[in-house]
């Protein structure tokens, strides 16, 4: 059927007296429908921004499906998004064309065994597939050229030709096929509170303090690592303990909600990771409150949201993943992240496909069940309810110029927003599940894909958790390199968000200007690592290889070269009175609200909370560099943006400082010899020894939690290892955007409809990062 559909489009162009005119015009007027489905959208934006300017080819990005004739499917199509893709495609007038970019949209890429992805080629007819993860702008434009050639010349061909060479035929001894490198412990010992001896005086006083306060309520209180305390309680006491922590110690928000499945013991471990924004002594401390409950189909547990509202969305997420019903949470009667028909996928008995290391006759494209219905369910009861109260429902997204890849349900009365309901999960690619089935080193590129606009910080957080577990000290030079990369990535992410923000306020020039600056950042990244957006450069113990002097020179130059272009951006966008009128006093989040909803990062600081992980719990070389945390009082869109802008100026200075330090330092070790073991000669460049050194990495048993300050805020990784398997038992990632989602919702209430996009833009929301 799909072949027919595809042929129909070409048939329209090939027939009729005016066929040459039709083909000529269609060739030069391929308007891609702005269908950002996943992280390849970042590179799509680069392809159409000043760096490559796809408009040269006559391809003008158009937000509206009715007027476009070309879809560039950008990466993953999840089960939820599949419907949107089909609907958008059907909305488009004939003749129309489809390109799929990125490995996710082909055979799944790194998410090939995810439970939540589909194959676009089974949903719509596809003309060309472009490999890459993400694709480069050049390859995207190559795809456009290929479609153009197909239309004009009827040349429907792959643009690469391989030459076949006969393989050596001298028959050797032959061998059997080795088994999988993965090793799963059959009955893993899953414990969250493995005590560890650490030099942490404040810890023991805190524990004593906790013991006296929680007398009779706890089962055990353990120091699991520096700044990490685990409190075990009985299920009935957890709420009471939390209340005590909140009242007596100022523990005011949760950083993570977690469930760990232990099938052979027939239990779930329920975890809340809580910390404090108001008590500066306890800021770096993460208290893990956990309890065991019985593992059954739908276990019930009282929700903690009355006390800590910040746990709300994470509890809903756990409900999706494990079927744990948090009583008292409003979202328990529907799926939040997942498509409605999905089972509880993070339970251990939900299996995903295993790797096949041998090229055999197994089908290249194993069947993926499509969602049963491609209809998009409209919330009909919501319509009725709204109509009764004289309100109007606007559905924004998942395909909308100003939505990104999630759906917002706006309830408006006149021009005032009454309520916003987010419907995330359109890019949920099940990283947490996949991570349980991969080697530790294979998860480095995986987690980076959560946010390719801020890849180094994504890397860094995960690697930190591993290093914490193994107690590895990273060489000095690697620390500086990592700091440099993290700041470069922070600057890149800020410019990414500025671009999106300026688009959301209708300012395309602002977008183009910062995207040109981003092009410089990516140039530096590609020279350092070989990849534009997905470097996977930071590995446990250090970085993959040292960085050469001329690239360092270039990166240092960037810090001053950016000023010229930044000045223009400032004049035309940041100081533009219209922009200021749009953002000042809009979407205010007060300090109390920010703490209550558990906002993170620059958006928390904009509301006046002085909390930056880089200062609170310094990592790498942040404590040796000269910089300041930026905060603000306004808590409005402009405050959030300007706070970040100021922070980026600090980041530029940090970048300069680290580059200068690196230039002074002699070239040397960049990977810790502890982790390399027998291969310690490779400490300058891992080339040739990556698998030897990391293939069989096993973490000591326990839970290892790391937090880093990524571009958009606190990024938390929590790895649970059983000490025996060389794959993690569970990895919990809490990304800043996921925590900030609530902020967008709360800030929008009571504002005008058009303000929704300024608020959305000011929060720098990156859906793939939130959905993971």
């Amino acid at each position, binding site marked *: 059927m799909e072949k027919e559909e595809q042929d129909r489009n070409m048939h*329209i162009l090939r027939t009729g007296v*005016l066929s040459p*005119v*039709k083909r*000529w*015009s*269609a*060739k*030069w*007027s391929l308007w891609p429908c702005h269908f950002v489905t996943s992280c390849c959208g970042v590179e799509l934006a680069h392809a159409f*921004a*000043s760096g490559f*300017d796809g*408009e*040269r*080819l*006559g391809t003008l990005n158009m*937000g*509206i499906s*009715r*007027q476009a*004739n070309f879809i560039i499917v950008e990466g993953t199509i999840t089960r939820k998004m599949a419907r949107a893709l089909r609907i958008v495609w059907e*909305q*488009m*007038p*004939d*003749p129309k064309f489809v390109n799929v970019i990125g490995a996710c949209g082909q055979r799944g890429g790194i998410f090939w065994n995810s439970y939540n992805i589909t194959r676009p080629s089974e949903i719509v007819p596809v003309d060309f597939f472009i490999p890459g993860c993400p694709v480069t702008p050049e390859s995207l434009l190559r795809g456009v050229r290929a479609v153009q050639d197909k239309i004009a010349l009827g040349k429907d061909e792959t643009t690469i030709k391989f030459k076949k060479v006969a393989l050596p035929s001298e028959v050797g001894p032959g061998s059997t096929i080795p088994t999988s490198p993965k090793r799963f412990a059959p009955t893993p010992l899953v414990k969250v509170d493995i005590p560890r001896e650490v030099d942490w005086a404040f810890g023991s006083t805190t524990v004593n303090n906790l013991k006296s306060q929680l007398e009779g309520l706890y089962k055990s209180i353990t120091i699991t690592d520096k700044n990490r305390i685990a409190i075990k309680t009985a299920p009935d006491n957890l709420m009471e303990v939390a209340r005590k922590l909140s009242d007596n110690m100022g523990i005011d928000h949760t950083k993570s909600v977690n469930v760990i499945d232990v099938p052979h013991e027939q239990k779930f471990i329920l975890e809340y990771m809580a910390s404090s924004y108001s008590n500066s002594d306890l800021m770096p401390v993460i208290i893990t409150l956990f309890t065991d409950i019985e593992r059954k189909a739908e276990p019930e547990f009282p929700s903690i949201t009355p006390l800590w509202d910040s746990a709300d969305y994470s509890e809903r997420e756990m409900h999706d993943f494990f079927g744990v019903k948090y009583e008292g949470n409003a979202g328990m009667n529907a799926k939040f992240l997942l498509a409605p028909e999905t089972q509880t996928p993070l339970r251990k008995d939900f299996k995903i496909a295993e790797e096949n290391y041998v090229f055999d006759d197994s089908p290249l494209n194993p069947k993926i069940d499509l969602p049963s219905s491609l209809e998009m369910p409209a919330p009909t009861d919501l319509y009725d309810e709204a109509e009764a109260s004289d309100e*109007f*429902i*606007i*559905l924004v997204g998942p395909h*909308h*110029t*100003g939505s990104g890849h999630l759906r917002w349900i706006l309830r408006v009365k006149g*021009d005032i927003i009454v309520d916003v309901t987010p419907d995330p999960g359109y890019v949920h690619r099940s990283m947490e599940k996949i991570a349980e089935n991969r080697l530790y080193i294979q998860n480095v590129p995986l987690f980076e894909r959560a946010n390719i606009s801020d890849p180094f910080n994504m890397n860094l957080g995960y690697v930190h958790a591993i290093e914490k577990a193994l107690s590895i000290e990273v060489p000095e030079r690697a620390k500086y390199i990592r700091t440099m990369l993290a700041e470069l990535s922070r600057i890149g992410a800020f410019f990414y968000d500025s671009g999106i923000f*300026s*688009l*959301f*306020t*209708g*300012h*395309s*020039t*602002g977008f*183009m*200007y910062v995207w*040109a600056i981003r092009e410089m950042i990516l140039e530096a990244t590609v020279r350092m690592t070989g990849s534009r957006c997905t470097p996977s450069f930071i590995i446990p113990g250090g970085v993959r290889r040292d960085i050469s002097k001329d690239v360092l020179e270039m990166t240092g130059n960037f810090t001053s070269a950016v000023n010229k272009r930044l000045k223009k951006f400032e004049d*035309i*966008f940041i100081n*533009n009175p*219209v*922009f200021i*009128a*749009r953002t000042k006093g809009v979407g205010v989040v007060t300090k109390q609200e920010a703490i209550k909803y558990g906002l993170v990062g620059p958006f928390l600081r904009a509301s006046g909370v002085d909390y930056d992980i880089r200062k609170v719990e310094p990592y790498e070389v942040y404590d040796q560099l000269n910089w300041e945390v930026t905060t603000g009082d306004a808590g409005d869109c402009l405050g959030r943006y300007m706070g970040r802008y100021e922070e980026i100026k600090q980041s530029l200075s940090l970048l300069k400082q680290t580059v200068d330090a690196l230039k002074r330092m002699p070239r040397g070790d960049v990977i810790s010899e502890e982790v390399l073991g027998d291969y310690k000669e490779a400490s300058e460049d891992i080339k040739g020894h990556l698998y030897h050194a990391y293939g069989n990495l096993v973490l000591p048993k326990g839970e290892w939690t790391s937090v880093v300050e990524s571009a958009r805020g606190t990024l938390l990784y929590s790895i649970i290892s059983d000490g025996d398997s060389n794959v993690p038992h569970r990895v919990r990632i809490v990304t800043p955007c996921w925590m900030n989602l609530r902020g967008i919702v709360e800030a929008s209430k009571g504002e*005008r*409809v*058009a*303000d*929704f*996009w300024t608020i959305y833009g000011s929060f720098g929301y990156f859906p793939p990062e939130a959905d993971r």
Partner: protein
Amino acid sequence: MQEVINELLETMMSNQVSVPVIQPVIDMAAQIPMMGLGISFILWTPIFALLICPGLSTLGIFLLFFPWIERKLCARIQWRVGPREIVPWLGGLIQLLADTLRFLFQEVIVHKDAHRPYFLQFAFLSFAAALLPLLFINAGDVIAIASPYGIQLLLALVCLFPLFILGLGWASNSRFAFIGSVREAFMYFAYEIPFIIAVLAMVILFGTSNPILIPDKWGIILNPIAAFTFFVGAAMATSRMPFEIPEADQEVAAGPHVEYSGIAFGLIYVMCYEKAYILSTLMVVLFLGGGSGPDIPGLTVHLGDLMGIVWFLLKVIIVMTTMFVLRTIYPRYRLDQGLTIGWGAMIAISLVALAWSIVFVFMQQGGVL
């Protein structure tokens, strides 16, 4: 029969567009019986104005090439290149031709919720209606209908545009189209009054509302406040940044146009350029001295009426470009901010402009100026 033709010919000959440099050619062609009639018909001022300039042909060329100018210039400001590969050596000049033809051959979808007859009608009607004001505008000395109420008629017709946009939105029967139409309606009331007052100020200042009789003075110097009000009002009327509120792409997905495809969208797409063209011509007539321009020795004599047209079009291009380049400079205002500006600052400024004109006229009559 012959008499009727002769009489007609006489009427036409009495009011011909004079272009001295091609006069010999015309004279030669006039020898050929039917050809002569044809040529004098086309050169008959009202028909020339309607068909050639400032009417259909000029408009057509504008629609075909102006978006290219806009896209190229915006791209340049945005550190890009803009359309190019279609004909690299001309800088992609015919990009819009490809786009137009593509729309022409693309399927027109009428979705099932739409009001089918109106959905299609309004797309074509709005395009046609936008042409009407061209009857009352003059390029230099060339005008289709010279009426003492020319400016008023023109304004009345210009005020028709929003009605059609409302119609588009209503017939689309989509949520975004609905919000877009409501926004358009709001904005319509906000800009209309100051816009009309600004024109009124100029009519008072010139003492006539017949465009052809408006002296070749630069209104922008005589009453800069009115010029500013008019320009901002025109930007609002054509939904230019920072007032691109009804069609905000990121907010209401192009508002009233959201459901249109194929040639129906093509017509709506060019309609906004049409609107901009008409308002720019009005701006040129009222504020930039119409078709007047410095004497270029050797050229003015030969070109005759055409010289006025050339000056006129040059000015129109400048005004339109300025209007469109705004998109690269400004983000967009919110609806309520747009309304506040329209009902507040704009009305105040327009009243000042009106007062300015009245004082100016009094002073002129009193012999002070």
